[in-house]
């Protein structure tokens, strides 16, 4: 499937340990009967697909400098994520917290954890079972953007909800 290749590229861009753990890219893709037939199962237009989650709903939310509070935009994204997770119960997720480079390494690890946990708590409050959500922090170790100005920093201060098909074989 071409989509799988696309997934791996996307995962690599996100700095995921994709090659170590293929299951986190979604075992659910193959088995999930997509139904209506107006779109290709597993494609970006399939609302049950991880790509839909990633691209249409948005797999990440962004934070203000040194903050872990959620903006209205972030809440809207997370509302979409929780709906998707409540519908697609085969999936678990790891929420990755990240920081920009303007901080010390260990503080930023703690800050990334704080951001990831904020997202997790929001999703749990929205009804997603806590058992399906884990967090991890990468601090400033895995930036998406590499320039040293706010335009890049604002994209690096993020929490990314990474799906894994942990519940079905």
């Amino acid at each position: 499937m071409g989509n799988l290749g696309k997934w791996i590229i996307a995962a690599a861009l996100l700095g995921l340990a994709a090659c170590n753990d293929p299951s986190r890219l979604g075992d659910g893709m193959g088995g999930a009967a997509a139904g209506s037939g107006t779109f290709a199962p597993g494609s970006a237009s399939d609302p049950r697909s991880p790509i839909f989650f990633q691209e249409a709903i948005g797999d990440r939310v962004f934070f203000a400098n040194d903050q872990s509070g959620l903006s209205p935009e972030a809440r809207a994204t997370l509302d979409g994520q929780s709906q998707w997770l409540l519908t697609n119960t085969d999936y678990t997720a790891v929420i990755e917290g990240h920081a920009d480079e303007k901080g010390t390494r260990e503080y930023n690890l703690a800050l990334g954890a704080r951001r990831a946990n904020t997202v997790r708590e929001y999703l749990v409050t929205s009804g997603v079972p806590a058992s399906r959500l884990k967090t991890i922090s990468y601090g400033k170790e895995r930036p998406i953007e590499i320039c040293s100005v706010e335009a890049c920093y604002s994209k690096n201060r993020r929490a990314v909800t990474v799906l894994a098909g942990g519940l079905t074989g």
Partner: protein
Amino acid sequence: MTRFLVSLLLGATLLAAPVAAQDGPLRIEITEGVIEPLPFAVPDFVPDNPAAAQAAKDLARVVAADLTGTGLFREIPASAHIGSVSDFNAPVQYADWKAVNAQALITGAVSVSGQNLTVRFRVYDVFSGAELGSGLQFAGTVDGWRRMAHKVADQVYSRITGEGGYFDSRVVFVSETGPKNQRRKRLAIMDYDGANIKYLTDSAELVLAPRFSPTGDRVLYTSYESDFPRIYVLDVDAVERRALQTAEGTMSFSPRFSPDGRTVAFSLERGGNTDIYTLDIASGQQTRLTSTPAIETAPSYSPDGTQMVFESDRSGAPQLYIMPASGGEAKRISFGQGRYGTPVWSPRGDLIAFTKQNKGRFHIGVMRTDGSEERLLTASFLDEGPTWAPNGRVIMFARETQGADGRSTLYSVDITGRNLKQIRTPEGASDPSWSPLQN
């Protein structure tokens, strides 16, 4: 590891009281706002046998590099020498060395027998016309010749400055390759001057912030080896590692040894909140030291083990605090503008080094343990993570350059703010931790 024999060539009191040798004019007061570097000469050491010929030259060069590298000494190059030393035991022709304005003269002799190498050396105060301290001998291996040069240089430095030396020491750090968004990191160890680099992990997983044990035989660090950040302890000689047992499902990082090497202070994150804990290595008993909703991290013990300085954002932004090593009420010590992090207690106990972020710039600084007399030693786009030389006079840290091509390298600077210089490493480098003096 190499064992060194130390023996006095002359029956004097050098080892017991190296400080007593500084009454003469040949003295550098590091704490004064100097400095015109002290001129010295170190002619090639005398080979006792043909097998020692190369080592005799090389040792003298490393001694000279150590001393010059402090910024406190200036070498009179061999091309300017009038006199020479071809017999280690012959009387020194002081006039020859005065004429080239060498205030200190270091002579040495080297013998090599199989894998064994012995070096003897003497230090002379040229203008007083007297030996400074007594001759001394170090014995080790041919492969360990650089260490013996560092030991000689440590002695020379101590006799002239009255401070402990720091050349016979190592640095463990994170070696880095690749661009910022695909950076690969592995642990590496090297001599303090960048020589003898050796890699301790591969680049398969992310590793962060190694810290030496008080005796330099073990290293604590954080690794994502299990796909989740947790603390590992690595035996340096055997290059064997094991994970420290901390609570499941939580992120543990920022580990530091206590001065007796038995306890690890570290940060543990639970539900988004990071606090400081200690772990007794032998018993596995874990104790929570802080319990606020703030981020508490980067602990560092006082040299006597009774207190701990750490970083907390409980006031709204990261600041430095000191608390008893067993936990309890913490007292804030940083009050300047900006954000303070990564405090490290000096091995002398008098100062705390830190990273400060203010108005878009990063600084390495020092302050007294009550927070007074803050001094910023550096400024750049991103300076971070100070570590102390064994004598508490020099700080090493990492500097990352700006932008898409940003790269991290190691620098050192005196606590006076002088003598900022880069430590050459084959790859990028970050998170240095300076060992104690080796045995």
